[in-house]
């Protein structure tokens, strides 16, 4: 059993701000994190999902020492975020602000050299590391131009390269594929999987469910400053009441419905006439991937014609919606309309 390399223990963060309402100043207290506890294991690829304003960024900022928690503590690579800030920072490679955080009047190479120095990497080692990263991430064409001339995707790749400059054991990435084109994002995911295979622990936030499913060994869903779901994608899906559904359209003799219902693993079958003698069967099961070959075999073997099959598995998006009451797609479109719970105070 791997040991935790990041441990968050009863971490809380409260923001106090002043807001003006009808000319009067009022104190507003926002509990961004409410006693969050979480272990991320050595060598794990961990996904942190949550709607905007849920506390993802605050949690990451506390873990990376950008914010001091109001209470609780966190340990990163064996070091407390409260007492050993420099060691925590030296343990992490970060990409938190997308393509921000780069010097536009410096070239990509000069940016990496600058940040490499801030990470205490000796000059000789740094030069080689920069060359290696340029080759790994194929930074060739634009790398020696000033960043102001880069496209958004190129800036994102450079920001990603910056997070790898110190070759730290832990990588913390906040939506790294946003604004990347599809091939580049795919290449980056492949690279991340490879880095994880080679032992790097990765804490990853994303709004893209397929990314979380593809990459993350475990996923945590955070909302209103609390971890509300935690586990592997399969565990989270299994925790849902909803079953997988496979829709099968075609021409079926009447007795086929009975045969399908009798198959082991089938929970329910709904039948709908579609006209022209065609029927749609909606077959609910525990696991559509396992059931599909059996269903096809049972239906075709009984004089039926299948014209269309559409599996509808429970997805992480369904889990997310069930847990938070919001869709990530909708939430992404509403960036800026932050929803935070006001925890008290005032006056």
């Amino acid at each position, binding site marked *: 059993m*791997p040991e935790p390399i990041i*441990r968050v223990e009863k971490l809380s963060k409260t923001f106090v701000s002043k807001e003006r309402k009808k000319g009067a100043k009022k104190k507003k207290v926002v509990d961004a994190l409410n006693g969050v506890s979480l272990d991320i294991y050595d060598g794990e690829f961990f996904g942190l999902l949550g709607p905007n304003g849920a506390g993802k960024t605050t949690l990451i900022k506390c873990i990376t020492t950008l*914010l001091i928690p109001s209470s609780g503590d966190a340990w990163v690579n*064996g070091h407390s975020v409260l007492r050993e800030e420099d060691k925590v920072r030296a*343990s992490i490679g970060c990409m938190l602000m997308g393509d*921000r955080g780069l010097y536009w009047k410096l070239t990509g190479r000069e940016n990496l050299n*600058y940040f490499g*120095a801030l990470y*205490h*990497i000796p000059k000789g080692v740094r030069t080689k590391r920069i060359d290696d990263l340029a080759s790994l991430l194929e930074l060739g064409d634009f790398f020696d131009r000033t960043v102001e001339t880069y496209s958004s995707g190129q800036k994102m790749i450079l920001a990603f390269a910056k997070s790898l400059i110190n070759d730290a054991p832990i990588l913390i990435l906040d939506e790294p594929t946003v604004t990347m084109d599809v091939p580049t994002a795919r290449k980056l995911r492949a690279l991340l999987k490879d880095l994880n295979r080679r032992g790097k622990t990765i804490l990853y936030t994303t709004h893209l469910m397929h990314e979380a499913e593809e990459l993350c060994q475990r996923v945590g869903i955070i909302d209103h400053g609390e971890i509300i779901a935690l586990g592997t994608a399969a565990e989270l899906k299994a925790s849902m009441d909803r079953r997988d559904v496979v829709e099968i359209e075609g021409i079926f003799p009447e007795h086929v419905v009975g045969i399908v219902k009798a198959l082991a693993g089938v929970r329910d079958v709904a039948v709908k006439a579609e006209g022209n003698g065609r029927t749609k069967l909606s077959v609910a099961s525990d696991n559509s991937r396992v059931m599909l070959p059996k269903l096809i075999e049972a239906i075709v073997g009984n004089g039926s014609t299948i014209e269309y099959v559409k599996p509808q598995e429970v997805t992480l998006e369904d889990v997310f919606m069930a847990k938070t009451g919001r869709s990530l797609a909708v939430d992404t479109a509403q960036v800026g309309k932050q929803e935070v719970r006001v925890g008290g105070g005032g006056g």
Partner: protein
Amino acid sequence: MAVAVSRGFGLARPGWRANLDIVYTIIVSRLKIISRYKGMLLMEAFLPIMFAGFPLLLGFAIGGANAAQNFQRNTGTTADYRLYMLIGSCVFMVVTLMMWLIGYWIRREQETGTLESMYLAPAKRFYVLAGVTTYAFLRSMMIFVIALFLGSLAFGVNPLSGNVLLAFGFITVGFLPLWGIGFIFGAFILKIKEANSVIQLVQWVVAFLMGIYYPITFFPGWMQYVAASFPPTILNDGIRSSLLNIGNLFGGEWWVPFALLLAFSLILPLLGYEIFLQTERRLKRTEGVGQY
């Protein structure tokens, strides 16, 4: 309960070499950035000449042919009022640029996100600030030299007739207190998240206190003490008295202002750094340093 597992720090090799490397890399990177804004240094070098030009022409308009004698008689300093004011303007430019560059550095880095990137790295803030303030000093010294050279040509004065070595000594010891003031100013900008209005206000207060066009003996008694305990005033007075071979504010002995600047060199950088750290810590408890 603490986490036991530790996987080291990747390629990082902390130590004094790494700290010096931070200072050096920051200076070189920032000089590269400024060199990519074409003609900026030269344009900045004209500012102190303009600053000196206004009072010189005004003085000549009022004093006419007797301007030099009037200035010497009224101030008890020198008849070479053109060089007196040119040096004052150039030193003021060094001081104000140190504050401008630190203030704008913090503000701009907050806006572009590079400040947060810097805070994610394990580099000690002292070395980062040392790099930035040294860069600011080097840049302002380049402007000082160019402006003094061009200004001397424009006003027909010779800045090298006095004790140049001593003036250089004053610049060397005066650099560290400016470092400290830069740290304090940086902490203030970090806190209030606004650079323009503060810089506008502070630079004219500084210009007033430094006595760039006049000796601070013109001030009422209590204000003379305030001005004389301000390191940029001592620096200005030290450089001016060296290059013009005139007495200084402290009775003429060169070592008195020199020793005072040396004392400030020991106190102000540490005080400034402590204030910066305290401000930073307070911000990390509230909204974070990158918030702008």
